[in-house]
C-alpha cells in the first residue's frame, strides 16, 4: 500500500524565528497591514510504502524524530492519506 504523508515542521513557539520576524516587519512594503506575527517552517511531502496505516505512521514518526525535525528546536505535525493507485 502507498501512503502520502504531509508533514509540517515548525520552530518551537518559545524560540525567536528571525525569518518570520523579518517577513512580518516587511509586510508594510507589500501594502499588507495588520500582520501581527509570522512564523516560518517547512512542509515535507513523503510517499511511503507500508503494509497498513499503523506501519506507515511508525515510519513517518521515526523519520521525523530522527531526521526531519530536531525536537530541541522544532515541533512537527502530519496527516496521512492512502494513495489511490
Amino acid at each position, binding site marked *: 500500500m502507498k501512503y502520502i504523508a504531509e508533514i509540517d515542521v515548525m520552530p518551537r513557539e518559545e524560540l525567536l524565528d528571525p525569518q518570520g520576524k523579518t517577513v512580518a516587519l516587511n509586510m508594510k512594503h507589500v501594502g499588507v497591514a495588520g500582520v501581527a506575527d509570522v512564523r516560518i517552517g517547512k512542509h515535507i511531502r513523503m510517499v511511503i510504502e507500508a503494509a497498513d496505516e499503523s506501519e506507515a505512521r511508525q515510519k513517518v514518526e521515526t523519520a521525523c524524530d530522527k*531526521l526531519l525535525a530536531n525536537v*530541541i*528546536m522544532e515541533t512537527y505535525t502530519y496527516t496521512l492519506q492512502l494513495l489511490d493507485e
Partner: protein
Amino acid sequence: MKFGVVVFPGSNCDDDMVHVLGTVMGCEVKKLWHKDTDLGNLSTQDCIVLPGGFSYGDYLRAGAIARFSPIMQSVINFAKAGGYVWGICNGFQILCEAGLLPGILLPNEQQKFICKNVWIRIESLQSPLTATLSAGEALKIPIAHAEGRYYADKATIDQLEVNGQILFRYCDANGHITPQSNPNGSLHHIAGICNANRNVVGMMPHPERCAEEILGNTDGRKLFKSLLATTRLTV
C-alpha cells in the same frame, strides 16, 4: 597525538585544518572520508576533527544529514570510548545533531551570515583545548556562520554552567561580556562547550584560520598548543 580530519561533501575547512595540524603544528594527520567507517590506526589517545563547511549543503538543518553518514557512527563510538573529538563551526553543529553535545545551533538572531573577527573569553580550563590558557583571557578568533545561536533548555544550560562545560563566551576586546559583543544571539554568550566527560568539544569560531604569523593573528594556535600539551605530546 595523531589526528583524523573528516571530509563530508561540502566541508571547506578540512584543508586549512590539515595544514595547521600537519605543517604548522608538526602532527601526524590524515583525512577520513565520510563514506568510510574505518578510523585506521587512530586510538582513543588521538583526536578526530569535524571541520567547518556546509556539509550536505546545510539541507534540512545544518549538520542534520552529515550526522547519519557512515563515518559518524564510528566517530560516535570513538567519542563514547573516550577519544577526543573537536568540532568547529559546521563540526559543532554536527556534534549537536548527533547528540554528542547538548543543545543546538539556531539561525543567527539577525538572519544574516556573519563573517568577522570576534573575541572569545576563556571560561573554563577544564578541557584539553583550554587547560594551558588563563581563565578570563580573551582571544581574537574569526567566526563565519549563519546558524550559530546556541540554544538549549534552561535545565541543560544550568548544568553546563555548574559543571564548567562552557569553554568560550563571546566578549569584547577587554574580555567583558556586553550585549554588543554577542554576534548571533547565543544564550549566555556561548561560543563553545564540551561534554560532561570533557573529551568532546564544539565551538563556532575558527582557530585554524588564525594560527600563523603570515595571517596576522596567532591566537588560534594557543588552542592547538593546549590540546597537544595536555595530551602530553609537545610540538
